């Protein structure tokens, strides 16, 4: 049985933050969970996926976040408690649905989990999604710890039903990817049978209806303002004349800092866990008798501006600071020492100097950036496209996935990236106005997510662009989730239909469609040359399983390769062109780490001396 389905109330369990949230939702009787995978939220979806195999929970990996939100919104409007999980930038994709769903509302509890990523450990930006709550008029909950993440995940459904609106549960990487103990609560039997009563003049967002629904949304927001002021998630701790307002993981750093500085008795903390709407009465009360207020929040000055405006309302003129050169940054994530320093500086507390080591004599250590795996199919394609385009000037709009790592030398196959699906659409724009040939890269999952509209645009508007679809049969970057093009029978999962990328592309009217097998180097190069020469939209589909995924599927293992030192003339083409992590240089000679080599044989085909050969038993 899945550990998160254990019916043992009171049991203490060590879990990942994402698992704590999944358990909280299960304890609320969630019956529908949808997602598009994205770090740092992916393990939450995985937990739902696994549990759906052993319970009545319906779960799906949806095509993209907008679709995921709409599926969950429908479930909630059919009386089914639903949760929709995505990373912060996923909410941008879902935002169109979210803004008007707030007007339509929900019949059963619906929770939108947004996992923000301060410092961008694996994201393209560090936007602060609390503003989505403000923009949509929805409540936002923000946990500081794992037990609280679990409790909020349960409570969010109640709150949602009370207001008839979806609730945003906003986490950051340090909640999703932290591990700690939670205590299991009672399981409830979820309601899995939905029903729908026609009510078009409340459920169809035409202008006349929406005008009324907007009024209702604002009324619900007023109701939410009362609830947030009563909420136990917004609480005061301590009684000193110095005030600190904080939220999320910042609260932990503040607590530790006050202990370290020995000023716990001088400070009052207002911990905000229910951050939209902000609790006006609680904040106003908190301001009373304070000498000054520090607002500790990662990201944007969301609470700081609110607190300052509330202070202005009651004529309170004490200093209220948060973001600033000597205080907190809007960039990156907080850490205990940084928060300690800001608190000490702001309140004038002595701070022991940091015990920083002098590392000036430490030599520069070669960087270890993330890299495409040994034998990665993307590496082969990048090499082949370069080879095929040897006499051409090309530029590469790329997309979001493992292949984004192609930006690094020696592959250097990424020139422009904004967001999911942007490769082909920006490719359309570039191809219209620049001299270089535009060759775009996109993965299979991202193609389905948001690449298709860009391709339709390219065909319809007759752009001169080559789209390379890197079809490695899985959503690799986030941990091998399925996507609509994946063979789920191979994963032992029944009841799904597989969509052929080739058929989609041909169905859209692309006339030049080429399928290559990237481990066959020369054949691929020849085919790519033809596609590049085509005037108009050409599509190359590179089909080969992600090696990590193939290993997980227990596909046959190939023999690793070695260098035949008698034949090697040390051209280093293999290393210089491919940068495969299975290769290294020892005693000034190239060598292959047999434990890492997966036998893809791409380097063997690159070597002009045929000096790279399989290891014979």
């Amino acid at each position, binding site marked *: 049985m899945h550990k998160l389905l254990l019916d043992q109330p009171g049991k203490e369990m060590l879990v990942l933050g994402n698992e704590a949230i999944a358990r909280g939702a299960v304890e609320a009787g969630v019956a529908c969970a949808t997602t598009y995978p994205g770090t740092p939220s992916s393990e939450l979806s995985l937990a739902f996926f696994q549990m759906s195999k052993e319970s009545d929970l319906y779960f799906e990996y949806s095509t993209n976040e907008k679709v995921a939100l709409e599926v969950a919104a429908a479930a909630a409007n059919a009386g089914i408690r639903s949760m929709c999980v995505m990373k912060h930038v996923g909410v941008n994709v879902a935002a169109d649905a979210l803004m008007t769903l707030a007007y339509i509302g929900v019949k059963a509890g619906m929770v939108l989990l947004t996992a923000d990523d301060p410092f961008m450990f694996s994201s393209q930006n560090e936007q602060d999604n609390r503003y989505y709550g403000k923009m949509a008029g929805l409540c936002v909950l923000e946990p500081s710890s794992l037990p609280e993440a679990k409790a909020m995940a349960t409570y969010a459904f109640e709150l949602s039903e009370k207001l008839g609106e979806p609730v945003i549960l906003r986490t950051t990487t340090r909640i999703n990817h932290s591990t700690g103990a939670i205590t299991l609560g009672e399981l409830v039997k979820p309601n899995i049978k939905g029903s729908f009563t026609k009510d078009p003049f409340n459920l169809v967002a035409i202008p006349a209806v929406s005008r009324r629904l907007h009024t209702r949304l604002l009324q619900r927001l007023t109701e939410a303002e009362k609830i947030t002021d009563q909420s136990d998630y917004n609480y005061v701790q301590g009684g000193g004349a110095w005030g600190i307002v904080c939220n999320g993981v910042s609260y932990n750093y503040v607590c530790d800092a006050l202990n370290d500085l020995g000023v716990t008795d001088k400070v009052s903390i207002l911990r905000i866990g229910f951050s939209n709407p902000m609790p006006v009465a609680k904040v106003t009360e908190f301001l009373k008798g304070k000498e000054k207020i520090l607002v500790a929040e990662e990201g944007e000055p969301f609470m700081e501006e609110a607190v300052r405006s509330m202070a202005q309302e009651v004529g309170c003129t004490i200093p209220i600071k948060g973001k600033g050169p000597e205080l907190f940054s809007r960039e990156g994530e907080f850490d205990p020492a940084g928060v300690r320093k800001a608190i000490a500086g702001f309140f004038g507390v002595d701070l022991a100097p940091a015990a920083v080591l002098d590392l000036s004599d*430490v030599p520069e250590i070669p960087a270890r950036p993330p890299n495409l795996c040994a034998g990665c199919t993307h590496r082969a394609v990048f090499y082949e496209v370069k080879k095929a385009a040897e006499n051409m000037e090309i530029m590469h709009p790329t997309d979001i996935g493992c292949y984004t790592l192609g930006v690094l030398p020696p592959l250097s196959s990424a020139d422009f990236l904004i967001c999911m699906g942007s490769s082909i659409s920006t490719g359309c724009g570039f191809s219209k106005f620049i001299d270089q040939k535009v060759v775009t890269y996109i993965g299979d999952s991202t193609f389905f997510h948001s690449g298709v509209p860009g391709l339709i645009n390219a065909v319809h508007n007759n752009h001169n662009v080559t789209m390379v679809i890197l079809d490695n049969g899985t959503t690799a970057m986030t941990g091998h989730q399925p996507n609509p093009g994946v063979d789920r029978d191979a994963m032992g999962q029944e009841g799904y239909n597989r969509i052929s990328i080739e058929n989609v592309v041909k169905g859209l009217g692309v006339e030049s469609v080429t399928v290559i097998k990237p481990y066959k180097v020369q054949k691929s190069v020849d085919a790519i040359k033809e596609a590049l020469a085509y005037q108009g939209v050409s599509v190359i589909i590179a089909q080969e399983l992600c090696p990590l995924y193939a290993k997980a599927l227990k596909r046959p293992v190939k023999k690793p390769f070695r260098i035949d030192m008698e034949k090697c003339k040390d051209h280093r083409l293999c290393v210089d062109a491919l940068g495969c992590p299975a290769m290294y240089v020892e005693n000034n000679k190239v060598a292959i780490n047999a434990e890492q080599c997966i036998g893809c044989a791409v380097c063997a085909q690159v070597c002009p001396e045929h000096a790279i050969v399989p290891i014979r038993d």
Partner: protein
Amino acid sequence: MDPVRLIIVAVGGQGNLLTARVLGEAALASGIPVHMSEIHGMAQRGGVVESSIVFGDAQSSIISDSEADVLLGFEPAETLRALNRCNKNTAVITNTSPLPPFTAAIGKGVYPPLNQMLDLISAKTASLKAFDALKLAHEANNPLGLNMVLLGALIRSGIIPISADTAKQAIKDNTKQAFLESNLKAFDLGFEAAA
């Protein structure tokens, strides 16, 4: 109890996260508060994987620069790279078998000599325990047991408030049956090596 702050640095695939998991379970079993944090996702594609574990009375799950009490390094250059997380009172335990990054292979930087790296670490921190953990993992007939060797060495240091028995029980509960025997052997070899 006063917090004890442990940072584990490793290269993706070396089993850092499992080590952290075992330590977390062992702490839970010992009734010691524990907060852990790790980095997943893009960081795992052959990059550096870092776990932080805070034992004792603290609420933060991450550790600031210069504030680690113990640094456990799975790869010598990564141990050296993480020296900014240490101070002069930090205890360091490191594997000495190198795994040079591919950037060194393509001529972007030079992998420093092992002796130089160990001398630097030793000179700047309170103690250094350095040994070839990969060799011991092979001795345990489990090349993937490098993490268990290092876990054994960490427990032997006595800095983490977890007994060998509790750690072994956590290994039993959290690792695959097929590797259990060799994992425990690897743990023992690491435990002895750190004597």
